[in-house]
């Protein structure tokens, strides 16, 4: 995976992968800035990387707010900032549109579209098929653990110029 044998060097692989899921993996007592900077340092990046990621996620206004007091949407964007601060080569997004407001979705979109230029592949697992399709170039359906080819007529209509594959899970929640 990513050119490294995952069985022998799992840590190197983990550093190169970023996961944005339901939980933020953050510390309630620390501020947004402190959390993102910790993630950056922990993955061998700099404080500057952290601050830049924070800006791209649009969290400047809550930079000094403790994690415990963030709203759901802000936490989602914090997850994105953490992911960016790791400078990953593979970005895994699990239901990224959930909990994001309009502004948040713009942030998500800009991050996903800019990812390939930074040498990063993005994989999205989502129930929001229309929104996810808008961001992706390739689509995979997973139904009850089985991979199925996508139904025709969908990928052709997607106006997405970015070269990112999408994984869309259709198993009922």
């Amino acid at each position, binding site marked *: 995976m990513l050119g490294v044998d995952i069985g022998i060097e799992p840590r190197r692989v983990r550093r190169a992968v970023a996961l944005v899921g339901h939980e933020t993996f*953050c510390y309630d*007592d620390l501020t947004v800035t402190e959390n993102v900077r910790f993630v950056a340092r922990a993955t061998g990046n700099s404080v500057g990387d952290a601050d830049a990621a924070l800006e791209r996620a649009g969290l400047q206004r809550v930079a000094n707010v403790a994690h415990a007091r963030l709203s759901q949407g802000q936490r989602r964007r914090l997850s994105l900032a953490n992911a960016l601060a790791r400078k990953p080569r593979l970005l895994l997004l699990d239901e990224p549109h959930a909990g994001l407001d309009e502004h948040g979705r713009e942030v998500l979109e800009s991050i996903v579209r800019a990812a390939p230029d930074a040498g990063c592949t993005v994989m999205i697992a989502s129930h929001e098929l229309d929104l996810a399709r808008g961001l992706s170039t390739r689509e995979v359906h997973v139904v009850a653990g089985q991979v199925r080819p996508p139904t025709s007529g969908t990928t052709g209509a997607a106006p997405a110029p970015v070269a990112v594959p999408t994984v869309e899970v259709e198993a009922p929640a």
Partner: protein
Amino acid sequence: MSFVRDALVIAGKDLRIERRSRVALQQIIPFGGIVVLLFAFALDSDRTLLHQAAPGLFWAAVLLAVLLAVGRSFSVEEANRARDGLRLSGIDGGSIFVGKAAAVAVELFLLEIVVGAAVVVLYDVTVRGIVVLLCSAVAATVGLAAAGTVYGVLAGGLRARETLVPLLLLPAVTPVMLGGTRAFQAALDGSPGDAWPWIQLLTAFAVLAVAAGTVAFGPLLEAA
């Protein structure tokens, strides 16, 4: 060296959490003081008895406080699946161990100063043999912090974590209790030379605990 740098990042994170939340300062250290008081009640405020038992009572109070310190060190990892975040960070388990244990050790040192002061004042103790006191305290504290961190991660993520860690940790750190008490006793009795075998015991324990933790922390963090 990346190992040391990563450990410092982890230790810094834990200490920053403490500075922000002040749990050790406002809860754990006062707990140590309360235990010192409790012992006085238990021994019926008998000054002679308290004076004689002071070394042991000091370490008993510290041991109980370690349970809280270790509990706190790992409870911050429970919320928001931060524990998984640590696993995904790609940092070597040994580094995380050293970092977390170091942070606990720092908190313990502060606690020992306060509890020590309380013991000196309340149990009417004359401080002698400072060098021995310091050496034995350093060795003991490192051992306690290391052993505590091992059991903290071992029980981490389990629902019964809060009651399991005390049950697992206390029998395992009896050498520290023994060594610390005897070393302090020798120092306060004015025969610091007698303390050196006990300081050796404390140091051996500390070395073993740190070695065990460096090796075992990674696999334990991965376990479920």
